[in-house]
């Protein structure tokens, strides 16, 4: 063990410092055992983000493993930046959904915008051009004083980012419930298109390879963002505000074009976006997957601010950045591509055969950690849970018919926030850019053509939290099945799903019971329908002062329409046509 580690920042490990890093006392003990010495501040920061709920899935991983993730169409299941399914004739759909709940509550415009930016990076990282964005949004009671501000900020943030990048936002859902008054949900989904022989992965396979940083410069953005995303809110959360990140969709657009341009050559061995926990998790994951060590020289990292410490650079969540492992000798050609698009490009390190992640800054070793341990040592909790007692069934005949008559009731229903038209939302999204939107928002599922072909990709997202609250397992199934129905309704063959599991504090057994129930339900429905889960995201601790959100496992479904001429849509085409009701 190398114990020459010095920190440029003097510090003392206090209980507060450990707590501030979101680590429990026993987790810190475990860290000490792994390191065999006291960690430097940078090392403490690195472990804290890697072990955060957000990065490590420590509460949900045990149950996520029960989901069906394989199937005839699956090219890549969970475990990479996004899932991939085969569309035939050399085409693949790459997709994933991810939450940006906490940041969006604190700064709705930027929080939502950076959520969209992040999920698009997950998709184009794999070699896909993003072709459709969707989003699942939950807000509090419409009459709550904050709701209006949050809705308008989130919607314009999603539009502001997606419209500028030029990827159509074609679908999603918006709902209101007092249970989200203090914890809104912003789940963004992106679908991309790739050629099956041009898919890129994140494993840094090979020793002595250049580690390359591209995109925007690093600033002190969102330091601790990843741990914040897993910490409960309290009334003092206003104080955490400066960790908000600002998105730069213009740079993202350039980054997409530059990455896709370089991907057309054979220069890239591995690539990964710097999402939550930025440089830390991208380097750790790439090195771990490749079975190599990695050396970083932070002096080479493009910096936006002066005097940044190693700690800050390793934890920064500055947006619009990517990390690549290049084939030796291709640096100059790669650099030319990024310079053409006015993006930063820097070789910041090298892969090694030491199996260690060694971070140096200003001539000092700031972190020296075994890669495999760092990437795989996160605690795994099988948290106690209590099965949820399903709510009593209510039979229709128990509900008295309304006095007012059907028509006024229908009008009232259509005017409620739950059912009212969402046109106000999707008209703020450019849903037609790229010229392939053949079914616009407002129907059961959106459809975009596979560019230059007659194939269509159908996508939708759904969940009804009320059902999940009443019976997590049934509610989980219902959400999966609803996406299935929506895809079939436009004439698509459903292929696979992504999910975004939004819940309260998993350390409470009744919440854990909801999580377990919902995952069981989702798993069963997906297995039965041969409709595998290829990617997803978990967002826990969505609660304030001990009150959790309604359980909200959002499901994003993707299907294939072999010939868009045969697509179906909701609009009634002609007068005098027959209406048929099928099903029970």
């Amino acid at each position, binding site marked *: 063990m190398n114990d020459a580690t010095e920190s440029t920042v003097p510090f003392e490990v206090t209980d507060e410092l450990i707590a501030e890093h979101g680590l429990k006392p026993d987790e810190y003990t475990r860290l000490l055992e792994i390191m065999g010495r006291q960690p430097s501040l940078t090392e403490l920061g690195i472990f804290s983000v890697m072990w955060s709920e957000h990065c490590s899935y420590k509460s949900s991983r045990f149950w996520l493993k029960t989901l069906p993730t394989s199937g005839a169409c699956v090219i890549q299941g969970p475990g990479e930046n996004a899932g991939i399914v085969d569309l035939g004739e050399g085409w693949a759909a790459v997709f994933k959904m991810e939450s940006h709940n906490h940041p969006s509550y604190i700064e709705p415009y930027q929080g939502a915008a950076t959520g969209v930016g992040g999920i698009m990076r997950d998709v184009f990282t794999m070699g896909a051009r993003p072709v459709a964005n969707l989003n699942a949004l939950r807000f509090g009671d419409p009459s709550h004083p904050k709701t209006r501000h949050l809705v308008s900020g989130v919607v*314009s943030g999603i539009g*502001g980012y997606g419209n500028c990048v030029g990827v159509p936002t074609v679908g999603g859902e918006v709902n209101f419930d007092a249970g989200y008054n203090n914890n809104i949900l912003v789940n963004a989904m992106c679908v991309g298109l790739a050629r099956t022989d041009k898919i890129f992965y994140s494993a840094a396979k090979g020793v002595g390879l250049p580690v390359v940083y591209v995109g925007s410069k690093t600033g002190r953005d969102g330091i601790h963002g990843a741990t914040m995303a897993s910490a409960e809110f309290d009334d003092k959360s206003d104080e955490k505000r400066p960790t908000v990140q600002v998105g730069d*969709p213009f740079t993202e*657009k*350039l980054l997409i074009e530059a990455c896709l341009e370089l991907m057309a050559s054979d220069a890239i061995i591995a690539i990964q976006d710097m999402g939550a926990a930025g440089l830390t998790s991208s380097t750790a994951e790439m090195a771990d997957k490749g079975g190599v060590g990695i050396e970083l020289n932070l002096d080479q990292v493009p910096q936006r601010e002066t005097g940044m410490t190693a700690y800050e650079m390793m934890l920064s969540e500055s947006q619009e950045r990517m990390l690549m492992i290049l084939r030796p000798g291709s640096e100059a050609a790669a650099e030319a591509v990024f310079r053409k698009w006015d993006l930063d490009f820097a070789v910041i390190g090298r892969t090694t055969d030491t199996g260690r992640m060694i971070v140096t800054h200003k001539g000092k070793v700031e972190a020296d950690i075994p890669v495999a341990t760092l990437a795989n040592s996160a605690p795994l909790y099988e948290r106690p849970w209590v099965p949820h007692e399903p709510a009593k069934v209510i039979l229709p005949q128990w509900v008295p018919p309304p006095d007012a008559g059907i028509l006024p009731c229908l009008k009232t229903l259509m005017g409620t926030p739950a059912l009212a038209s969402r046109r106000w939302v999707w008209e703020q999204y450019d849903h037609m850019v790229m010229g392939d*939107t053949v079914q616009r928002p407002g129907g059961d599922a959106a459809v975009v053509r596979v560019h230059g072909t007659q194939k269509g990709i159908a996508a939708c997202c759904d969940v009804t939290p009320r059902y999940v609250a009443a019976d997590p397992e049934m509610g989980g199934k219902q959400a999966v099945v609803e996406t299935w129905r929506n895809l079939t309704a436009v004439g698509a063959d459903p292929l696979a799903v992504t999910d975004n599991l939004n819940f309260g504090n998993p350390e409470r057994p009744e919440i854990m019971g909801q999580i377990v129930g919902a995952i069981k339900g989702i798993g069963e429905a997906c297995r039965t329908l041969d409709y595998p889960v290829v990617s997803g995201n978990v967002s826990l601790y969505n609660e304030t002062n001990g009150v959790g959100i309604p359980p909200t496992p959002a499901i994003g479904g993707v299907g294939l329409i072999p010939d868009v001429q045969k697509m179906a849509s909701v609009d009634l085409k002609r007068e005098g046509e027959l209406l048929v009701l099928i099903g029970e």
Partner: protein
Amino acid sequence: MIRSAVIVFPGSNCDRDVKVALEAITGFPARMVWHGESEIPACDLIVLPGGFSYGDYLRCGAMAAHSPIMRDVVAKAKAGTPLLGICNGFQILLETGLLPGALMRNASLRFICRDAFLRCETKDTFFTRCNRVGEVLRMPVAHHDGNYFADEDTLDRLEEDGRVVFRYCDADGAVTEAANPNGSQRNIAGITDSTGRILGLMPHPERLFEPQLGGTDGRRIFESAVVSIAEAMVG
């Protein structure tokens, strides 16, 4: 052979859409020209596409108007090469001064993406010769800054010279306030220069040029251009 060129700025995002429409309608490949080039190869039509050049930062179109390629765009347009600016392209045309006025933030302050109806006000331009005056076309708008502004004198002059090409209207062709999606003065959706060869418009004709996309009204602008080009070739 019809040679069209689409200028690509950093942040353009309707460049491919326009290329696809141009190629489908003219039957010939369209050339993409990077903003950093200094010259556009000789061509019969130049298009400045929609998008968010330079992120729409500072003012929409302001930075793109200073791109190296714009010197040649302006020179060629002044020498008679037809020039079409769509959405962000229209904003760029105003920033270069090739067309008068400015596009301000939408009156609602919101980005708006939906079909709009346009009344064609003149057929005496390169891009509308196949239209009827008073004809109603359906075309999508998708913008945050499409609120056309010019001072009263300029507006009067544009009207007198027949340079207002399209106005927002309802499905029946009535030019009403309710049909105005963005607060544009006098419901103006598109204007031309005095020669009728430079057209700037906010709606996107390339988004409705084939039945699968939901309509074909957008074709008309490109078809007029094709007829005009063919006629110029015949002489």
